[in-house]
């Protein structure tokens, strides 16, 4: 059993997790309404790791994320309206509609350019760690990536460099392949690692590692806080593997709303998980899990509901902002090639 979260941290993490969940439920709806084209990736089921990380990091730190970036960018505090506008390719988007869902980035919050190249973020985040070491101001670089990134050669190069140069980098492997589709269902397998221990890759270059339950916000917060402290003290990188049971809606090639709109009542004794994915909701949904641990009395339940209502309103406003935003003028396609 991991230590429980300090009360204020728990509320902040829950707020961030709900913000991500409601944001991505809205993304899913907009995708079904064909409001944007192109493939996209959702973070549903993995919110605990990202939200906990944002509570463990501070303003001076850098972050590198992936094609599955919405959660990280939103949880760090990026404007939901501008983020949604970016996903819809609007001029008001975080990146003027040039990046889209796979490349959301908010440099004012410390994000590097968001690489959609698997493994790209590991190598870029290591570079940010090199910048932090040169500045000697105690800042760290946090890198989020999936288990698949460790199949790329550059990931090993980056881990080796980070270890050799003792760079302040928290490598946060969000292993979401547990429960993913198996070959033979018409899709390729997602898991191609010949080894069974992803942490072993980091250990082979003398980086200390921690494996944890990625749906456990308290465990994630404790481990990431320790890792950040180690980095700030100049003791080099840490590798964390946060394992989550894949949200079933991420199993098809295109996300599907298989678990519907998240009903927090399931975690507050008001309703019961049911249907094909009841087991995932009962045991693996990080939000329901955290709500269950926090909904200890009527006052807490009231506060949770009020928080959720408030967040839903913010997301509704974000969607309205995005939908009413103009598309970029074609003439601006030539802007920003060179700084």
């Amino acid at each position, binding site marked *: 059993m991991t230590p429980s979260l300090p009360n204020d941290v728990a509320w902040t993490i829950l707020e961030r997790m709900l913000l991500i969940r409601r944001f991505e439920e809205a993304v899913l709806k907009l995708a079904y309404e064909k409001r944007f084209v192109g493939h996209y990736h959702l973070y549903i089921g993995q919110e605990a790791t990202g939200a906990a990380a944002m509570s463990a990091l501070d303003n001076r730190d*850098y972050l*590198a994320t992936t094609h599955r970036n919405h959660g990280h960018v939103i949880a760090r505090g990026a404007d939901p309206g501008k983020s949604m506008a970016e996903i819809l390719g609007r001029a008001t*988007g*975080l*990146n*003027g*509609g*040039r*990046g889209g869902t796979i*490349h959301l*980035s908010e*440099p004012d919050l410390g994000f*590097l*350019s968001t*690489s959609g*190249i698997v493994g*790209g973020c590991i*190598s*870029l*985040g*290591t*570079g*940010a*760690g*090199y*910048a*932090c070491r*040169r*500045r000697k101001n105690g800042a760290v*670089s946090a890198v989020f990536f999936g288990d698949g990134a460790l199949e790329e*050669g*550059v990931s090993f*190069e*980056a881990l*080796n*460099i980070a270890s*050799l*140069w003792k760079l302040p980098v928290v490598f946060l492997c969000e292993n979401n392949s547990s429960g993913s589709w198996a070959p033979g269902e018409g899709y390729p397998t997602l898991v191609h690692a010949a080894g069974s221990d992803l942490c072993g890759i980091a250990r082979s270059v003398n980086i200390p590692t921690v494996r944890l339950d990625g749906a456990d916000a308290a465990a994630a917060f404790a481990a990431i806080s320790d890792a950040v402290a180690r980095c700030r003290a100049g003791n080099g990188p840490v590798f964390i593997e946060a394992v989550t049971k894949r949200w079933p809606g991420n199993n098809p090639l295109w996300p599907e709303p298989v678990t519907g709109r998240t009903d927090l009542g399931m975690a507050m004794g008001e309703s019961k998980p049911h249907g094909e994915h009841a087991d995932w909701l009962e045991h693996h949904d990080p939000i329901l899990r955290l709500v269950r641990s926090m909904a200890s009395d009527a006052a807490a339940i009231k506060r949770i509901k009020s928080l959720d209502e408030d967040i839903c309103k913010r997301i509704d406003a974000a969607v309205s902002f995005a939908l009413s935003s103009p598309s970029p003028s074609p003439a601006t396609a030539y*802007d*920003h*090639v*060179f*700084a």
Partner: protein
Amino acid sequence: MAKQSYAAALVDALYDSLAADDRISLIGSYVLGLGPQRHLMDRLRKDFRDRIDDPPTSEAGAAAAGVGAAMAGMRPFVDLGTGSFSYLAWSQVTNEAAISYYMSGGRIPVPVTFHLLHGVRGGGAAQHSHSPQSMMSNAPGLEIVVPSTAADVYGLVRTAFMSNNPTMIASHAKLLGIETDMPADRKPIAFGHADIKRKGRDVTVVANSLMVHYSLAAAEKLAADGIDVEVVDLRTLAPLDENTILESVSRTGRLVVVDECPLRCGIASEVSASVVEQAFDKLKAPIRRVTRAQVPVPYSAPLEAEITPDPLKIEAAVRQVVEYGRRPR
């Protein structure tokens, strides 16, 4: 005027840049390869010890370290070694550094400087003789610098470090020991300004990097026969100074483009196409391209010479262009 080798001027530019801006650091310090000039770097290793990190044999990882650090506000220099190795860092150069400013909506500049030693260097065979800069020209957002002289490499490298864009500096391996004039008041040279290295009336020869020296050698020989060649040194491939090329061709009416990249979709093809599109009516003869042949570089010396541009091939191309349309005597 005092003379300096290309290698010494490059080292001076690195030294002066490090001294001028604390954000600058070197990822990789074997910029001059492992040849006789390598000791010129000792001065930097001594005076900027804590700002030089030699990476493991990891071109992609080292390039990304520089790119990521640049996104985080530093101005790193990444030595990619021999140009052929840059392919290992291709994603980091073309698909991370070059596109980030654009993809972020103008919010994430990437002021990283890469360096590589390009070109057919003698016995390098197919895997140590590449000139990847024409391929890199298909990566919008990347500045590509190809100096030919000591003064130019000094000025262009200084500018590369001050630029807010990712910059690739390609130095021909055979340039390192070549000494040229170095003015006392050396200073940064703006990108996108070709330099007319030799004024002439009859033919424009557009070249870059080592090919500038070969073109000047050919021009001297042709001058003895009364053919007056103008040699335009591009200095930067991106941005490309079309104006200077077009202005020169408008005066001479004849164009030979010399480049060591392979023929297809190369720098010479690009320059030729631009001139045909924009100054067709000024041309008195078809354009000739003198480039590396479209084959991998062979090891054996006579084979290598066969497929590589040299002063004799440039001279022959110029004569063809000048004699076009003349009646046989």
